[in-house]
């Protein structure tokens, strides 16, 4: 160990149980270890069950990125059985995925990430009139009068005076790393509360098609929400109009609140465009099909791999090749059946055999030189990969897609930073916003496609030809992928005698937050944390910034 070892556990404002142990020397992180400390073993629970039910089980892997595991699961089963879903179902799934992006990214920005940049207590010092001026200078958003901000300030003032600070208690308020003027802090706080209300609206798109949120319902073969234009239940004109309204409102908030706030706040933290870059390897599986899932050229999110920040060369990913995606357990609390823990397994051959060797709780430190996490360590052709919004935006940009170029170039211009600033903590956070912007636009496109298709007389929502297991082959295997909000997600399934023989999930946060591999190579979090400045080891807000920029989801990562 070099320098001072600090432990941050729990890392809050994330999903799940993440522990970071970091060595600090001369005000900088010299080494960091990322550990997931909760396991449920859902892959083992799936064995022997009906493959058609898997979406519901894996849906419960995560309620924050809810829906994405379910979608990936039905795709894996459809892939194994050769089921092609009707276009309407594809559009609806895309619509739901776009809604998920919009909601998840906004929640992340305001409720999980903002307090790393916005000093809530400092907002009390703001001048409401000046705040109003700033707000109106960056956006047309109507809630921006001086009265609005001063009412809010009073409300928060009362709250703080009560001495019961609730969720704001013990924040690192007043830390020198907070750089925003009081007025911008107040805007951030106002939109924290507005976003809290807004987020529950946009996901109503899930409720309409999937019956509820979190955990909307999916279906192998399509979607269960039959189109019944002439029926009160079923997707009819009223439901469709509802969806359209929600999309519009969603777009508005992202365009008029999220993006302006993101740009305003980022402009005070441009130094973070050079911190927290990490690996420089980025991977995207691709998603949001416009011409069917089986035609990747029609994906809104193009797939591909960038190595070592070289955006001039892009590699393709083959999820079926047993030499590309592999998972390692050398530093994780698992074992392999044959005892060889150094080898990597392709998920179709994957194993999830728990073997805890860590200290008995309560413990102070983890033996980071040995096994130290419940996450496995996935690798692509042996390379550690970063997945997520930044990877997607970079691959879209590198593939020369106009939509990506437009939003990226505009943002770089607004902030007046070079393209290289994207390889950073700031870049990751900005990419998330740009992606929210894109998915908000695409949601409307998918909506229009759905309407057109129904208008043309196609009202199919599910292909149930192969729903009955008696029509299945004795053996089948498949892989389904999705671009989840946090990155590239895939599930591999092996079906035998109508039951699940093996089911393996390799999840975005598993890629990013995993422990090192048998060769000692770091995964994305650990790599990004190296060289992060830490002004005060007692108040490591800088570490939180970089970790939060990935939007960790540990329930996902371990499952």
């Amino acid at each position, binding site marked *: 160990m070099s320098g001072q070892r600090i432990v941050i556990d729990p890392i809050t404002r994330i999903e799940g149980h993440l522990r970071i142990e970091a060595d600090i020397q001369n005000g900088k992180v010299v080494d960091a270890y990322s550990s997931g400390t909760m396991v449920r073993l859902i892959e083992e629970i799936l064995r022997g069950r009906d493959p058609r039910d898997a979406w519901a089980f894996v849906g419960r892997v995560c309620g924050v990125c809810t829906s994405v595991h379910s979608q990936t699961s039905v795709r894996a089963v459809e892939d194994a059985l050769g089921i092609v879903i009707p276009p309407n179902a594809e559009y609806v799934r895309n619509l739901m995925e776009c809604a998920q992006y919009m909601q998840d990214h906004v929640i992340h920005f305001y409720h999980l990430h903002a307090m790393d940049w916005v000093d809530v207590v400092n907002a009390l010092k703001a001048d409401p009139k000046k705040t109003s001026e700033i707000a109106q200078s960056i956006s047309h958003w109507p809630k921006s009068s001086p009265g609005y901000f001063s009412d809010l300030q009073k409300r928060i003032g009362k709250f703080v005076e009560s001495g019961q600070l609730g969720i704001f208690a013990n924040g690192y308020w007043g830390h020198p790393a907070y750089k925003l003027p009081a007025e911008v802090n107040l805007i951030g706080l106002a939109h924290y509360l507005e976003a809290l209300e807004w987020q529950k609206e946009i996901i109503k798109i899930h409720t309409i098609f999937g019956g509820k949120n979190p955990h909307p319902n999916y279906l192998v073969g399509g979607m269960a929400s039959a189109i019944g234009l002439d029926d009160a239940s*079923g997707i009819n004109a009223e439901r469709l109009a509802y969806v359209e309204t929600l999309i519009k409102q969603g777009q508005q908030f992202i365009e008029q609140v999220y993006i302006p706030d993101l740009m305003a706040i980022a402009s005070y933290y441009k130094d973070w465009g050079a911190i927290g870059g990490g690996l420089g390897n980025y991977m995207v599986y691709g998603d949001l099909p416009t011409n069917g899932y089986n035609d990747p050229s029609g994906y809104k999110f193009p797939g591909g791999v960038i190595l070592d920040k070289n955006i001039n060369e892009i590699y393709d990913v083959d999820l079926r090749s047993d030499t590309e995606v592999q998972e390692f357990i050398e530093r994780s609390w698992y074992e392999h059946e044959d005892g060889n823990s150094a080898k990597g397994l392709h998920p179709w051959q994957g194993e999830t055999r728990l073997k805890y060797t860590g200290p008995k709780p309560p413990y102070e430190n983890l033996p980071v030189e040995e096994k130290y996490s419940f996450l496995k360590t996935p690798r692509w052709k042996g390379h550690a990969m970063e997945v997520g919004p930044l990877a997607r935006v970079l691959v879209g940009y590198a593939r020369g897609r106009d939509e990506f170029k437009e939003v990226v170039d505009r943002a770089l211009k607004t902030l007046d930073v070079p393209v290289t600033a994207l390889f950073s903590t700031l870049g990751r956070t900005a990419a998330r916003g740009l992606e929210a912007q894109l998915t908000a636009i695409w949601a409307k496109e998918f909506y229009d496609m759905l309407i057109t298709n129904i208008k043309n007389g196609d009202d199919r929502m599910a292909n149930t030809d192969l729903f009955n297991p008696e029509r299945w082959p004795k053996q089948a295997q498949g892989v389904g992928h999705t671009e989840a909000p946090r990155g590239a997600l895939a599930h591999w399934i092996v079906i035998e005698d109508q039951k699940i023989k093996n089911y393996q999930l390799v999840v975005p946060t598993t890629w990013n937050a995993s422990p090192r591999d048998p060769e000692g190579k770091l995964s994305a979090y650990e790599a990004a944390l190296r060289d992060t400045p830490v002004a005060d080891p007692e108040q490591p807000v800088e570490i939180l910034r970089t970790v939060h920029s990935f939007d960790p989801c540990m329930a996902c990562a371990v499952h």
Partner: protein
Amino acid sequence: MAPITPERRLTYYEELRHRGYSRRDFMKFCTVMAAYLGLEASGTAQITKALMNTPRIPVIWLHFQECTCCSESFIRSSHPIVADIILDKISLDYTETLMAASGHAAEAAMQKTMKDHYGEYVLCVEGSVSNYGDGEYCCIGGKSSKQILQEAAAGAKAILAWGSCACNGCVQAAKPNPTQATPIHKLVKGKPIIKVPGCPPIGEVMAGTLVHLVTFGAIPELDRVGRPKAFYSKRVHDSCYRRPYYDAGLFAETFDDENAKKGYCLYKVGCKGPMTYNACGVIKWNNGVSYPIQSGHGCIGCSEENFWDNGPLYRQMSSFPGFGIEANADKVGLVAAGAVGAGIAVHAIATNIQKRRLIVDVIDEGKKAEKELDNPLS
């Protein structure tokens, strides 16, 4: 009594005094409440102190083996909206999902509430506890979920078990439950526990339960298994708007067939509404937009005990424990009946062989008796 400025919210005590109640009334109220909560005499003092000094009830919200969708569902509540709850009604002193502080600072916030408001705070638990070994499968801040739960439960006034995870173990407790995921009520004794099951529960139901606790200062009426009656006293089936189709015997046969498009009952494609207690058909989801059945998928019974092992989702009758997923009671029963039928056939044949003598004898005797009757003198 502390001076009341317009800037400061009233405590419960101050509020009562302002409404003209005496200190004696107040003490009486505290005693009644302590009794209601099942606290000993010393509990009265705690409650009195709590209500005199605490404008907003402190809440500790723990996360164990879960997926955070209960928190997500909670923040989807439309009435009351969550901002109002956390700013005006409660003091959410610990929740890993939303709190600003991390690491030691977060720990410290929780410890402070546990100490300063011992016996007063409401403990919310999201997720199950891994009861395996030393608790190593779920650790936070180096402590096991078992230990954290015990510590936090000790000073809790009441415990809210959020979602199916905390109420019955949910998905991680599905067979073979490899981490020994265990619901809260099996680990904490002697505390009032309110179960709010569902995967997740409806946001308004969560908020409603919490607000009931805070507004009325009392636990809502609970049903036979500890759920608030207000939300869990009816089956989904009993308030399902597709019920007339069920009664008429009109069912969707597959998803997306003509019957499905007409909105017929989903029973035959696996709807578990007839066995599931929840408010989905009445309150619905996400501010009344829809609920699973309205969106064409059967109820999967997500608020029921062990619903993951209640058989495949798309079949009405559940699988039976020990017979694998393809077996259900009818298949087993039919096989057994077949075997019995075969046994009967074999037995009938064997009877004719084995008991031939006897049967012949009985017939002969009958014939003899007949003869005796015909010729009474011979």
